[in-house]
């Protein structure tokens, strides 16, 4: 709630404008009621004909046009208010997600982020467009009407003045109850409304277990239960609009009847009576609008929570220095007593120390959760250590200019991501559609053993790939990612070997390309394969966030420690799942 309010400044100017225009429109309503009453009174009481009221009548059309114009502009500026907030929120969400990086975002389902950026931001719109524009008018318009009515008819003014505060009072009482009930029901309702989609996604599983037909009955049952539960909430929620409707309608009836009798008894002038009757429905209109907008508010609050959840995710620290490394291939890496504890208390690394010389090939080995990926994330600058020192070529990591450092890295993840762009753009990593150096891209692809299959794609290097484009096999995706690494000519290679077994062809192709890539560069690999481990100059064995052993393959086997144990679990040259 407070989050939504905090967004108000972005929209303040447009909100004020919209409310001011609506208020002006409200004043014109009073003028219109006055003209209408004057015309009818003149015709009915003074028996004037059309020419007798022509001046007043002639004033009406321009008045109507002015009102329509004001209504249009008020609506437009209300949208502008919401648009500012939407644009601002999306920008903040996007930049926060970027700041979080893969480590800060870990564990968050992609779908939740997507729905926050698109749907949730969209659902906040009515709060600014409807609710915030309706609230100030509740204070302004009824007061203006009251002031207009009072000199003509103090009794009706009293009816208005007494009922007006009662309406919000009752609405708040009932609304609070409904909201409490709503929140209690929310999880249940969310589960029920998501049931159909859940079942459709699990249809294959249901079929495998011969449960798909009987599930049809459950779909109906769930929908039925959803109906019953929602109706229980709605019966109460609708009460607030019943109260509003009751006071507004009954007050109009009371004003009409009281006015009628005073007219008959001669206690009142006809013009005054009609003028007041015309304004009676208008008096309650702003309240009614707010009642409708109140629902929009409840929805927006729910949506805002989803946005806040993401904006509140803590950004993991990352270096922000300015020092650039000297040129040249290969760089030395030093970890000195590095520990990393996540905000949730998880200890990912516990006093890790090691040195990697420039040009050395080192393999990281250890069971899952032993800290291998954390070491990668530290080197990639996605997270900063809680204690200890990481240094590159003797420069403390915190002093490095991150952009410059990253430009020196070639990173090959287990499952490289292919972007929604052409093959060439994916290799050059120019996703914004800028021109890429064709020859360099091809050269890199050749070195990565990827030229053949890319050329065979329907549009060669211009074929769109990614989820919505040509589907590439796991091995092809790996080779394309390798081409990226060749293209940027990095000095430090971080390789996270794929655990999924590739076919023999792909494996040897990739092996050859990695071999070439690591020539003259520093290589740090999370290794799963015997070839990689054997080719390494040194193996660092991790367990529970600590370095437990280092040495060559033969040394470590001879020692009979963790590495030897891991090794004994393996078959066919695989040392870890």
């Amino acid at each position: 709630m407070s989050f939504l309010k905090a967004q108000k400044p972005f929209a303040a100017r447009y909100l004020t404008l919209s409310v001011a225009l609506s208020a002006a429109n409200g004043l014109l309503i009073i003028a219109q009621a006055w003209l209408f009453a004057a015309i009818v009174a003149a015709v009915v009481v003074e028996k004037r004909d059309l020419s007798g009221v022509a001046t007043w009548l002639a004033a009406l059309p321009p008045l109507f046009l002015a009102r329509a114009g004001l209504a249009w502009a008020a609506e437009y500026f209300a949208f502008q208010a919401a648009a500012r907030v939407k644009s601002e929120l999306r920008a903040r969400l996007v930049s926060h997600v970027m700041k979080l990086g893969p480590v800060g975002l870990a564990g968050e389902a992609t779908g939740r982020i997507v729905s926050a950026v698109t749907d949730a931001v969209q659902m906040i719109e009515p709060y600014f467009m409807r609710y915030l524009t309706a609230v100030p008018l509740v204070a302004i318009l009824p007061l203006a009407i009251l002031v207009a009515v009072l000199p003509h008819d103090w009794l009706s003014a009293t009816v208005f003045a007494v009922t007006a505060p009662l309406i919000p009072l009752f609405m708040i009482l009932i609304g609070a109850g409904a909201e409490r009930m709503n929140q209690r029901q929310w999880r249940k309702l969310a589960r029920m409304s998501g049931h159909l989609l859940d079942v459709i996604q699990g249809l294959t599983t249901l079929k495998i277990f011969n449960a798909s037909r009987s599930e049809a009955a459950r779909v109906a049952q769930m929908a039925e239960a959803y109906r019953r539960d929602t109706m229980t909430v709605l019966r109460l929620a609708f009460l607030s609009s019943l109260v509003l409707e009751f006071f507004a309608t009954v007050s109009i009836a009371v004003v009409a009847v009281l006015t009628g009798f005073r007219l008959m008894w001669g206690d009142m002038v006809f013009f005054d009576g009609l003028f007041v009757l015309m304004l009676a429905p208008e008096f309650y209109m702003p309240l009614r609008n707010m009642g409708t907008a109140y629902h929009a508010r409840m929805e927006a609050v729910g949506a805002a929570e989803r946005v806040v959840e993401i904006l509140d995710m803590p950004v993991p620290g990352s270096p922000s220095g300015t020092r650039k490394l000297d040129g040249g291939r290969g760089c030395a890496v030093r970890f000195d007593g590095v520990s990393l504890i996540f905000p949730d208390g998880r200890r990912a690394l516990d006093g890790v120390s090691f040195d990697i010389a420039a040009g050395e090939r080192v393999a990281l080995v250890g069971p899952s959760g032993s800290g291998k990926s954390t070491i990668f994330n530290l080197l990639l600058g996605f997270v900063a250590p809680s204690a200890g020192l990481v240094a590159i070529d003797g420069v403390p990591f915190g002093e490095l200019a991150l952009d410059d450092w990253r430009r020196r890295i070639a990173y090959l993840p287990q499952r490289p991501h292919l972007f929604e762009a052409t093959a060439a753009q994916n290799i050059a990593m120019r996703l914004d559609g800028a021109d890429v150096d064709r020859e360099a891209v091809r050269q890199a692809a050749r070195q990565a053993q990827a030229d053949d299959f890319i050329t065979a794609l329907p549009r060669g290097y211009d074929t769109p790939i990614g989820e919505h484009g040509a589907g590439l096999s796991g091995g092809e995706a790996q080779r394309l990612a390798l081409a990226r690494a060749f293209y940027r000519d990095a000095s430090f290679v971080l390789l996270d070997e794929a655990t999924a077994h590739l076919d023999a062809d792909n494996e040897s192709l990739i092996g050859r390309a990695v071999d070439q890539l690591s020539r003259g560069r520093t290589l740090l690999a999370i290794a799963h394969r015997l070839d990689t481990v054997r080719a390494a100059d040194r193996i660092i064995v991790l367990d529970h966030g600590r370095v437990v052993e280092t040495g060559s393959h033969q040394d470590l086997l001879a020692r009979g420690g963790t590495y030897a144990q891991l090794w004994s679990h393996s078959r066919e040259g695989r040392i870890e799942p």
Partner: protein
Amino acid sequence: MTEIIRLLKFFRVYRRWIALSIALSVAAIAANIALIATSGWFITAMGLAGLAGVAMNYFTPAAMIRGFAIVRTGGRYAERLISHEATFRLLAVLRTWFYERIEPLAPAGLQAFRSGDLFTRIRNDIDRLELFFLRLFAPAAVALLVSLMVVMVLWLYDGRIALTQFGLFALAGVLLPAAVLRFGAAPSERITERTARLNMLVVDSVEGLAELHLYGQAQARAASLRALSDDIIADERRLARLSAISQAGVGLAANLAMFLALLLAVPAVALGHIAPPELTMLALMALVSFEAITPIPLAIQSLPGTLASARRLFAIADAPPPVRDPLEPVPVPQQGDLVFEGVCLTYPGAREAALTDIDLRLAPGRRIAVMGPSGAGKSSLVGLALRFWEPSRGRITYGGVALDRMPSDELRRRFSVVSQHDHLFTATIADNLRVANPGASDADLEDACRIAQIHEFIVAQPDGYRTYVGMNGLKLSGGQARRLAVARALLKDAPVLVLDEPTEGMDGETEQALLAAVMKARSDRAVLLITHRPVRLETMNEIVRIENGRVVR
């Protein structure tokens, strides 16, 4: 248009609720019109009586005013309850219908809809159709009925007023919104298209976040997402401007109706055709009756989207089932050899064949391991055995009977399967397990979970077997979800056990323990173990290696 007719057919079951809801809504609006019009008539008549010093019957109109106020208030509340009741009942019908239509399609016929993006679209489409009655059909019906009633009442007093009123109703309720719709078509289309693109780019960015940072593209990507969002908002602004026109238009038309009624009625009063109190009444009626038209512009704006949703859902629901059951099915043998003879499979639209010339025989009680790299076509064997797909060439038999001669539901009873994409439902762990066997006792569940090495984990949860998992529940790791899937498969008592990568995402120790326990507990079953990991193969009778869709020896 055909979509609307088809949608209306769903209404037939609940036509009484629908009729009641519309009747109540008409009554509530009509009561409001009558309340204001009668009040106008009443005070004018009373005022004239007071001036003339004559008495008049004020009981009837005063009682009518009170009556209309009550009908208005109660009718509004009842109408909202009933219309929502009707909506939720229609929802149940629609959901059940849709489920029953797509059930036969899974999984082959839904292949194209597998990505999450399309599932979300199905959900949005269904949500939109559910509002068809509440936001579109009911307001349109009510507007039509009320405006006809008003025009008829006006006709009783003055034909010209009735006709102008009719014209203004048509202008504000049909012509203006239709024009807005037309001019808004292009921006609407762009919004749909760009929103889909925004969705796609956000997915792309989140999944490729590491690469974006490493290749210095994060800022540029953030900027292009912002630009795309602002492009969408710019089109929304165009639409908002247009929709504001049609909303302001309703107000303008209402005022004009009042103005024209005065213009036409004032001379009639002078001529004595219309009594003075009727002047007030007619003018107010002309003005207030536009309450029925107010929701129409928004309703009409939602029409194209609703129709598009309907079209998409009907297209999915009308797709022919990819695998048909035989007309004269042969009973499925209790036990028998599962035999693949020269089987080939090419998925529709695929570049290459998934399987080529596969020969395989799984006899009762035998154990075969199918090995090979991922993507080699191993899992396609499972889809074929369960008759989710039909081979492009070759023959598959069970107990000597060709699969396409048996009812596939019955056939599947012979198989207990851990598939690669086993779904965990948003339900408790126990409910998820009982999908395999609704009659399983708590002890059965625990036995299966012990074998699958997941019992300890489950009892460590605060709610134990009643812990919610799935989309809105406890997040399970890949390995935990697999173990649950294995436990589920064990609960189904079938002669053939198919395990497709059952230990994916588990550490070596758990993997060993799980496979050992499963093989021991189900020593009498035929087992088809599909894996790329050479673990515990000593318990297998035969090992088949598949690469690039072919058996290699």
